[in-house]
């Protein structure tokens, strides 16, 4: 299992090598991995259908109680099969779609890594591991959306997606930690049966809100839906995979996963139902108002995510069944539609429905399968999408007090989606042939394979829904937390309300499509505040952030050395003085007993040197004075028998003088730039700092820390570290990690100096 989950990451590392080896067939080669994984996961089916959930343990960081435990039940297995199954076709498709692109190996690499992260996410039983995989999907999706990184909108969209999902991810982390703390375990399979105990906790509400913040951002619920359509800047294989079948469903997965814990809580039900329904409506209306093929599909995905959230929120067994059926149907037809849209774009050079038309003769196969998938999107019998829509209406009917409201919203959405499906399926293929940037031609086999199989899958499951029934039942059981009776999935349920709604939606949808040109603008105007308001809020926030950063850089990092030193000194003085005064810590006794004559002389020497260095107008003079100060200090080290320090001090002084001499000749002549007031201020700060440090040293001398550390070092230096020079033993053995850090800092400083001088040198000539 561990191998299965991590294989994607490992293979991703070898993609660049492989792509050199097998050349244009790279897509096919890589697709072997998800195909093999699909078979592997399919092997779990018999067990899971029987109701035997499996937990597979791997210790990871046992000291922190974090493990890589995997939970295989109906829900996670269904997701795993979708991820690997669709992943197979996506890799084949991507290999053909980006054939000859210079960065194709990068895209395939990211796709594989993303697939592995997604698998880890749906299979993890440990909350921490789940969160790690969750963040990995965000990061890989950032790389994927920003694949065309030379393209400004792509970069912007990638950043937007990242900030929104990772921001939500932070909330999710807090939520999951709370969940683990309340429940007393970080293992999902232990937490899930403890729903009642969890809901009784006073922290339950906070936990729920935080978790929802994570899932809503990830699954693009209103008001966070704006990042998803923008993410369409990614190459089509990415959109097809991440934004239809998998990543955005991670949020839905987590909500479904936690449903047993949350079930019955009114706030949970209400939030999910209402936000889900709202998202559904916004997505539906925006889909029909768009003209770009990929945006239409993206908004219809927002619609689907809203529907799923709403259904999980309603939470009746019927609604949960509807959610799972809808999820499966959506993954099939949306994957197919995205790939087909990419194929259209690839073959014609445009994906605006205004510019496409009459392609049915030139791309007959694409036209056929797009029609099939679009019928499923619209919910027309005998496709699987129809069953999903029927069940959705039925679930809305059972929603209790809210059912009236939900039905109206579902109806409106269904009408819009029917029209959107018609837009996608009819506009590009019927009517007059329109001139396009490229001469249209049928796409290569590798690009048609994916959407053909997925669209046919939708048809097959519609005709024989019993095929998917065992898996769906296992998934519903996993969400509901209790066994369910065999499901009745059929195209024909007799004459009932859902059928009436479906029929009405179809008729109204077709009518809306016919008058699309007239309705598009007013509809878009109606929904605009909801659709674009949140995005504007996001942009405002980003602008404010940039302004804040700009302001603080101007104030704190203005490039003047004097300002930096002044800031550091004043802060230190403030903090030190506050601590010393508030703790009443000034304890010192001055006694001049035992002071030798030469010590006094050296001290006086230092004093003279300091005064001269700060008063003189000669640069060389002040350098020499500071040098004298350093050598006097070295003498003091010698007096107190610290030869290592003395040697170091002498050497450093020497080198400092060398460095100063090298720099000195380049400086302009001495000038008075500061006003007397500034000089007095600086003198005051410097004086205060000196006085404070003196007091501090005196105080420190008085208080004893017991000498524990230095005694330990003296005693163990030779015994444990085989060295008599304690200073050096400390440097290279006892505190070697500190030294390691310091030499890295030194190296960084040298690189910095080198870079700075080189930059200057390049600018000047």
């Amino acid at each position, binding site marked *: 299992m561990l191998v299965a989950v991590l294989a994607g990451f490992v293979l991703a590392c070898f993609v660049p090598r492989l792509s050199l080896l097998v050349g244009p067939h790279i897509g096919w080669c890589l697709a072997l991995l998800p195909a093999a994984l699909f078979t592997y996961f399919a092997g779990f089916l018999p067990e899971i259908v029987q109701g035997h959930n499996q937990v597979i343990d791997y210790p990871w960081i046992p000291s922190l109680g974090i493990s890589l435990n995997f939970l295989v039940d109906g829900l996670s297995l269904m997701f795993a099969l979708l991820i690997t199954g669709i992943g197979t076709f996506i890799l084949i498709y991507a290999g053909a779609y980006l054939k000859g692109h210079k960065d194709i190996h990068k895209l395939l690499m990211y796709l594989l890594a993303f697939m592995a992260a997604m698998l880890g996410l749906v299979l993890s039983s440990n909350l921490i591991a789940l969160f790690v995989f969750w963040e990995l999907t965000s990061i890989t999706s950032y790389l994927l959306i920003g694949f065309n990184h030379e393209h400004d909108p792509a970069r912007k969209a990638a950043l937007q997606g990242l900030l929104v999902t990772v921001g939500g991810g932070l909330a999710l982390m807090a939520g999951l930690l709370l969940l683990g703390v309340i429940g007393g375990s970080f293992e999902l399979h232990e937490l899930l049966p403890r729903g009642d105990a969890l809901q009784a906790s006073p922290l339950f509400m906070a936990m729920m809100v935080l978790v929802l913040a994570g899932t809503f951002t990830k699954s693009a619920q209103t008001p966070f839906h704006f990042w998803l359509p923008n993410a369409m800047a990614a190459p089509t294989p990415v959109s097809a995979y991440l934004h239809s079948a998998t990543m955005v469903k991670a949020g839905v997965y987590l909500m479904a996963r936690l449903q047993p814990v949350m079930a019955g809580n009114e706030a949970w039900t209400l939030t999910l139902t209402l936000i889900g329904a709202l998202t559904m409506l916004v997505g539906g209306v925006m889909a029909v108002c768009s003209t770009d093929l990929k945006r239409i599909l993206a908004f219809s995905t927002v619609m689907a995510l809203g529907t799923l959230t709403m259904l999980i929120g309603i939470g009746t067994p019927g609604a949960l069944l509807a959610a799972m059926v809808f999820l499966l149907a959506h993954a099939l037809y949306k994957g197919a539609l995205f790939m087909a849209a990419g194929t259209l774009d690839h073959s014609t050079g445009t994906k605006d429905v205004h510019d496409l038309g009459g392609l049915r003769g030139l791309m007959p196969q694409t036209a056929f399968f797009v029609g099939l998938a679009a019928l499923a999107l619209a919910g027309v019998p005998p496709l699987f999408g129809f069953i999903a829509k029927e069940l959705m209406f039925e679930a809305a009917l059972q929603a209790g007090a809210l059912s009236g409201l939900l039905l109206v919203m579902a109806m409106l959405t269904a009408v819009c989606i029917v029209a959107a499906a018609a837009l996608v399926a009819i506009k590009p293929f019927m009517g007059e042939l329109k001139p396009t940037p490229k001469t249209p031609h049928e796409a290569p086999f590798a690009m048609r394979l994916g959407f053909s199989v997925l669209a046919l899958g939708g048809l097959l499951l519609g005709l024989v829904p019993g095929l998917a029934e065992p898996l769906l039942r296992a998934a519903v059981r996993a969400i509901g937390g209790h066994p369910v009776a065999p499901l009745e999935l059929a195209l024909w349920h007799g004459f009932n309300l859902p059928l009436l709604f479906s029929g009405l939606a179809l008729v109204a949808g077709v009518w809306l499509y016919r008058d699309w040109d007239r309705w598009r603008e007013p509809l878009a105007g109606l929904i605009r505040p909801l659709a674009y308001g949140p995005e504007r809020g996001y942009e405002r926030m980003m602008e404010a952030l940039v302004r804040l950063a700009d302001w603080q850089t101007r104030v704190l990092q203005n490039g003047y050395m004097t300002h930096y030193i002044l800031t550091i000194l004043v802060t230190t003085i403030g903090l030190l003085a506050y601590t010393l005064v508030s703790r009443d810590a000034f304890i010192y006794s001055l006694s001049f007993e035992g002071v030798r004559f030469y010590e006094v002389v050296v001290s006086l020497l230092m004093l003279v040197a300091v005064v001269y260095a700060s008063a003189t107008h000669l640069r060389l003079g002040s350098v020499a004075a500071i040098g004298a100060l350093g050598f006097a200090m070295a003498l003091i080290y010698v007096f107190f028998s610290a030869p290592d320090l003395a040697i*170091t001090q002498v050497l450093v002084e020497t080198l400092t003088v060398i460095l100063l001499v090298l720099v000195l000749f380049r400086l302009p002549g001495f000038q008075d730039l500061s006003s007397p007031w500034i000089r007095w201020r600086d003198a005051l700060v410097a004086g205060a700092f000196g006085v404070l440090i003196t007091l501090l040293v005196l105080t420190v001398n008085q208080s004893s820390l017991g000498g524990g550390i230095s005694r330990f070092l003296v005693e163990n230096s030779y015994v444990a570290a085989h060295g008599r020079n304690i200073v050096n033993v400390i440097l290279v053995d006892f505190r070697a990690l500190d030294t390691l850090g310091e030499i890295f800092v030194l190296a960084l400083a040298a690189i910095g100096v080198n870079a700075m001088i080189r930059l200057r040198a390049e600018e000047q000539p």
Partner: protein
Amino acid sequence: MSTDSSLILQTATRFLVPLLLLFSVFLLLRGHNEPGGGFIAGLVASSAFALHLFAFDAGSTRKLMGVESQLIMGMGLLLALASGMVGMLLHGQPFLSSQWWSLTLPGIGDLDLSTPLLFDIGVYLVVIGVVSTIVLSLAKAEE
């Protein structure tokens, strides 16, 4: 800094640089028991190079060093890091745990080798690399 500096300085430098470098190695090796160590030894070695730079010019100092100063710096960092890994890889001990080996050389006596020594050599190389990088780039800017 230029070839027209005094003949006395140049001649003295020719004798002093090898002596200083030898002295720096001496300081490096004795550091564990007597005053010395990688940091001090590195400073001495780099002052030797600085002296050479003053007597001649940046180009000939670079030639004297043989390799890029940044390379010395990087090698030192790698050596220090690697010395910390030895204990990890051999005995599964924490990073930077010191390892000791005692060799008996016929005619000379016992020789103790250790990872702290490797670490110290790493520090030595880093210090040489850092100081000469800075000094050389400043001198280059001068020209």
